[in-house]
């Protein structure tokens, strides 16, 4: 009986110690690389973010404490694609999200009450076709009969359709496989697929891993670029206009820092995006980083809406007025010279 009692006490103590250790680690401040600031008297903002280099200004603002200076405690909720980040916003799991334009188009066509408040990155060369030479792919038409991967519901899917159309590749003769960017790189290395079409940095990583001499790369900046945007729900914007202005203000300060401190900025973006500086630099060199609202966005949104309706990716019958889903009010107060929409 005494032995049983001792054993029970020992087990109970062990459980208490384990719980204590767990509580310590759970409440321990900050993820790796994040600077610790005093977050009292701040407003918490849940940010659904794809931590790609596209989100450079956000990473710089976070690292340098610009959000906190504005009284915002921005908490990252990372996702592997902008589409998933947008889904988190739509599902009420985030206050603000980063997203490319195609997921925004599809969400608007699905009558989602979202609002784009700024574009933070734009690129015409961000999406590339990476194909294996040993699959017999040397020109675009060689993609017929091959297995190609892209992401579903995002810019690469739109680019893929436009690419196939432009180069007269019969879509019915292409096997389309939808994977995440990381899975695509692995699948290409293992020769499970013959090519993939996706945004950076996956193409650069594939080139590094497989070798440029073994790959055929197609780049066509005339087809489509991609915009990277800050998106909120309309009702959140109505109740939190001050928060959004402060968020954008922090990004504008980050933009100024980036212009004056390219090396430090590169290091920050590499750290947050999880890539080495060389790869990050290759990606950033193809991108225009800045807080803007211009007609590039509306042009893409309309083209994508037409594509989605034509391919029955939406039940919508007509192209909506996207101006109802772009709110320039906040950026006009923070950086009016770059609101040209």
């Amino acid at each position: 009986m005494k032995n049983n009692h001792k054993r029970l006490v020992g087990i109970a103590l062990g459980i208490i110690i384990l719980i204590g250790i767990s509580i310590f680690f759970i409440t321990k401040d900050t993820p790796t690389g994040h600077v610790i600031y005093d977050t009292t008297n701040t407003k918490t903002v849940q940010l659904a973010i794809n931590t790609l280099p596209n989100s450079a200004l956000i990473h710089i603002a976070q690292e340098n404490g610009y959000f906190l200076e504005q009284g915002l405690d921005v908490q990252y909720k990372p996702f592997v694609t902008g589409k998933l980040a947008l889904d988190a916003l739509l599902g009420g799991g985030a206050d603000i999200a980063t997203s490319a334009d195609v997921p925004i188009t599809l969400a608007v066509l699905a009558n989602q009450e979202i609002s784009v408040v700024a574009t933070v990155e734009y690129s015409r060369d961000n999406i590339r076709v990476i194909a294996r030479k040993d699959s017999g792919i040397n020109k675009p038409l060689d993609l017929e009969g091959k297995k190609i991967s892209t992401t579903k519901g995002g810019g690469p899917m739109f680019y893929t359709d436009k690419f196939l159309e432009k180069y007269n590749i019969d879509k019915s003769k292409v096997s389309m496989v939808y994977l995440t960017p990381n899975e695509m790189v692995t699948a290409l290395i293992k020769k499970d697929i013959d090519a993939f079409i996706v945004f950076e940095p996956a193409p650069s990583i594939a080139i590094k891993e497989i070798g440029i001499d073994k790959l055929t790369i197609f780049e066509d900046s005339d087809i489509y670029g991609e915009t990277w945007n800050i998106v909120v729900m309309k009702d959140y914007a109505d109740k939190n206009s001050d928060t959004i202005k402060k968020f954008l203000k922090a990004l504008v300060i980050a933009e100024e820092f980036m212009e004056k401190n390219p090396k430090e900025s590169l290091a920050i973006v590499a750290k947050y995006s999880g890539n080495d500086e060389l790869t990050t630099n290759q990606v950033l060199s193809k991108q225009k980083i800045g807080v803007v609202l211009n007609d590039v966005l509306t042009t893409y949104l309309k083209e994508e809406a037409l594509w989605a309706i034509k391919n029955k990716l939406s039940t919508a019958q007509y192209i909506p007025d996207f101006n109802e889903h772009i709110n320039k009010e906040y950026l006009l107060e923070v950086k009016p010279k770059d609101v040209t929409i």
Partner: protein
Amino acid sequence: MQKTTIFYGLSTLFMVLIIWQISVSLFDVNPILFPSPLEVLSAFYDSPEIYSDIIISMIRLVIGSIIGISLAVFFGVLTGHISVMDKTLGNMWNFLRFIPPLALVPLFLLWLGIGEFSKIGLLAWTSFFPTWISVHAGVKGLENKYLLVAKSLSVKKTWFLKEIVFKGSTNYIVNGARVGVGFAFSVLVAAEMLGAFAGVGYRISFLQSVYRIDRMIGYIIILGAIGLIFDRLFMGLSKHFTPWKNEPKN
């Protein structure tokens, strides 16, 4: 009795459809995110690939389940009958069965690639454990008197395994397989995210990404209906192979 069951089943289905339609009509819901039954039905006509998707998914499910269940029966008899196997292999299976199949999706992708092996492998893995534990319990729980009689009559080992062990645990095999296939159904969507380009699970995932919720719900209903058919098939198999057992009423 069967007519009554069908009547109650159809009545319930009809009631659910009516409530669904009324809810969508009465409340101010987004029709794209919350389509009505009629919209879901009309979306079926918009889905010519539905038949090929069903066939491809069923082939994957059947092959994966056959592999999983066959291995489960073999190992279940082994671990249930041989004490050393129970203590070694049995403990290992007991450890592995707590790993959620969904946690293994990235591993299956890395190890087996995006072809059919990874999908069928994941389905086989999922159907294996519920079947194994049922067979193992069935074999282990065989009444001792049968074992003693077999021993005293010095029957051949193969006859003993076939006529006593296997037949004695048939009910456990069928019921375990029924649960195993049910689990495999629940993992089908995840399995078909491993680089599929057709299939019910794949289509559900794709349609969600483009907010075609009407077609997505249609596919989900199809998945449920096929699952029900499979379940009824197993019930029939159970009655056929074990006529001496009373099937519990649902």
